């Protein structure tokens, strides 16, 4: 008795029409990447499902990994048993005992593709249900609305058991919606914005602004580690680290204090826009949430957004901070984001930033010096690193350090 295959159901993709193949192919590629380390597992697809033939690989490990793959609605592991009623009884109990959640009611749905099997479906339902009731405690049968519907499928070669439905991550397959640039500060919000964007199928690259010596190596490492978390979804991810010190110094020198924040954001957006063009992306993603801080009021966004007509996606715009924190905990980025180092957003924050900056004023203040030259210079000096999920744990540690472990 062993787990034979895993059934994968797509959610939203199955509603697509002519471009459905593109979606399915992306999903297939993403699943293949997850399965890389399981040499024997084979993936096959039919119209609205995929199957992973395990060939002896550990189904629990694979299920766990698949739970993080966007575009999968749900998963079910299936057991393969010899056509023997005693073994079948044991298998039913085994399947029931390994369920990942507690159930109070169940039913059994037997199907015979092979009518030669000595028991008909009613008999099977009866025998197997009775066996379950006898050998478990506190469960009852409910044929109308059971917590758990155990499907028994009798075929010529074997009997298959399935029924547990494990929720997938949902969304659309990664990369099926195009590419966008994520402004990754090191705070709590931006990585969450990244995850939500990936969930809707966006491929993302990260942009981090680095201002040594005002921000430290540790805050840069924070961005690297957060990007590493995002790479767990996509396998690998690009992180563009922008040297931002010169621009920030000029802003401090040139712009009235209560407007420095507004100009800083405008410059960041300009830099991000240029990197996006180079990388052939089509949008910029930020972790902004309406009204959370001075730079995220509607007036601020209006003033900042003036510098580009690229779509700026703000997946968190209508979310409360507490909800965002909850998501960050779920994506396992909260701990990294909470490390207490100065980053590009905190170190130059003025005491009283304008919450209602005006476009005409900020443009006027910026008009006395040539920021564009510095912006171009920053873009040219960008350091791009590719973070590979598998090597991510070792990133930042030299070989010399590696040997120590």
């Amino acid at each position, binding site marked *: 008795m062993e787990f034979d295959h895993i059934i994968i159901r797509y959610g939203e993709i199955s509603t697509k029409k002519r471009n459905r193949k593109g979606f399915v192919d992306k999903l297939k590629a993403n699943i293949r990447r997850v399965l890389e380390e399981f040499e024997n597992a084979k993936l096959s697809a039919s119209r609205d499902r995929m199957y992973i033939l395990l060939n002896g690989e550990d189904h629990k490990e694979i299920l766990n990994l698949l739970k993080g793959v966007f575009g999968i609605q749900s998963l079910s592991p299936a057991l393969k048993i010899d056509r023997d009623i005693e073994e079948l009884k044991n298998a039913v109990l085994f399947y029931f005992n390994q369920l990942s959640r507690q159930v109070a009611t169940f039913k059994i749905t037997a199907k015979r593709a092979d009518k030669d099997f000595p028991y008909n479906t009613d008999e099977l339902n009866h025998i197997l249900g009775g066996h379950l009731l006898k050998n478990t405690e506190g469960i009852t049968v409910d044929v109308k609305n059971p917590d758990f519907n155990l499907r028994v499928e009798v075929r010529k070669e074997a009997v298959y058991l399935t029924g547990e439905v494990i929720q997938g991550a949902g969304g659309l397959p990664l990369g099926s919606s195009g590419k966008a640039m994520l402004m990754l500060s090191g705070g709590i919000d931006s990585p969450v914005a990244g995850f939500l964007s990936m969930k809707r199928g966006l491929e993302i690259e990260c942009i981090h602004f680095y201002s040594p010596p005002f921000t430290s190596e*540790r805050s840069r*490492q924070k961005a690297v580690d957060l990007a590493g978390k995002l790479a767990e979804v996509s396998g690998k991810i690009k992180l563009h680290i922008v040297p931002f010190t010169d621009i920030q110094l000029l802003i401090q020198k040139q712009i009235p204090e209560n407007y420095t924040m507004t100009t800083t954001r405008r410059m960041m957006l300009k830099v991000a826009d240029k990197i996006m063009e180079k990388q052939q992306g089509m949008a910029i993603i930020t972790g902004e949430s309406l009204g959370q801080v001075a730079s995220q009021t509607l007036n601020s966004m209006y003033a900042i957004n003036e510098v580009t007509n690229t779509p700026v996606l703000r997946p968190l715009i209508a979310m409360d901070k507490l909800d965002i924190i909850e998501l960050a905990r779920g994506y396992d980025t909260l*701990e990294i984001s909470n490390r207490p180092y100065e980053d590009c957003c905190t170190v130059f924050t003025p005491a009283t930033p304008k919450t209602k900056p005006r476009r005409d004023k900020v443009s006027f203040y910026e008009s006395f010096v040539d920021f564009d030259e510095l912006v171009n210079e920053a873009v040219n000096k960008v350091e791009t690193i590719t973070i590979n999920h598998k090597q991510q744990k070792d990133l*930042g540690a030299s070989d010399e*350090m590696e040997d*120590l*472990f």
Partner: protein
Amino acid sequence: MIYFDNSATTKPYPEVIESFVKVSSEFFGNPSSLHGIGAQAEKLLTKARNQIAELLDIRGSEVYFTSGGTEGNNLAIKGAAFANSGKGKHIITTEIEHASVFDACDYLKNNGFDITYLPVNRNGKIQLADLVRAIRKETILVSAMHVNNETGAIQPITEIGKLLSAYPNILFHVDHVQGVGKVPLDIKKSGIDLCTISGHKFHGLKGNGVLFIKDGTNISPLFSGGSQESKKRSGTENVAGAVALAKALRITMENQKTGLEKLKAIRQMLWEGLEAFEGIEINSPVEGAPHILNFSIPGLKSEVFVHALEEDGIFVSTTSACSSKKKSPSRTVMAMFGNLERAESIIRISLSYQNELQEAKRVVKMVRNTVNNLQKVMR
């Protein structure tokens, strides 16, 4: 030399010492320093923490570095007791705990706490029914060791954890010092809140341990100071020790995959060789840990026996190393059999993955010879 006293301490792996020396000399920074040298040290500490977390299947934020098993047990028990005394002042433990648990409970007893000590049967196991009976409304902590340091008896930790999951006010502490790397324990699935391990029991160095504290568990620190280890264990972090422990744990877990069968075979050979010999009574339960074999030679002083074997280059111990200088009877064996003569004459053999089958053969022979010779002299 045959070293069969691995539950007292193990010989550090050379690779572990290498790492310790290198970190101490080349990455000596204080992880709390802001500059680059400090950042490097911090990176190493984080890496060590994450590696240990991965090996134990817990989270990095749940790994707290300590100075070893004694500190880990004290921090877990006193820390949990003081932080939760508002909910109640009753603690349950067993009669066969290591001194660092037993005496910590004793200390609490003198400070207003009420302690229940669960008895064990002849197999060294507590009965779940006893535990259920002992639980009260004001119980805040249950502390039970996974593998007993003297006899290798294994407690049903997973069952205890499942049982306790129905009592949200009770924290569950497990002294896993003797079990780690030898007897698998799924910390998360067993509903454990606090779990102690110590580096020098698996070929790491003395002075390094880890206390697992489940995220969200409330315990008071024992030390006041610089708020290191999320305020639960102040004191400049021992980065070199942490790295050494992470490495020792990795190597040990790798050895566990291939070496466990050998360990069982060695114990089996010792068991069969000694059981058959008249005058020897085996105290370890059959289904005990694969690396500990405890037996008594009633009528013989165990200290004399240890020295006699030492002359042949064989190193074993009487009771646990921590208690052996007190010359008192073994508390564990007394609890299991209630026989003083038996509890006064115990010998413990404890193995590691570095031991070989031939060594067991020789030890069986030498034990028999020594018993014969001594019995002639002493009777």
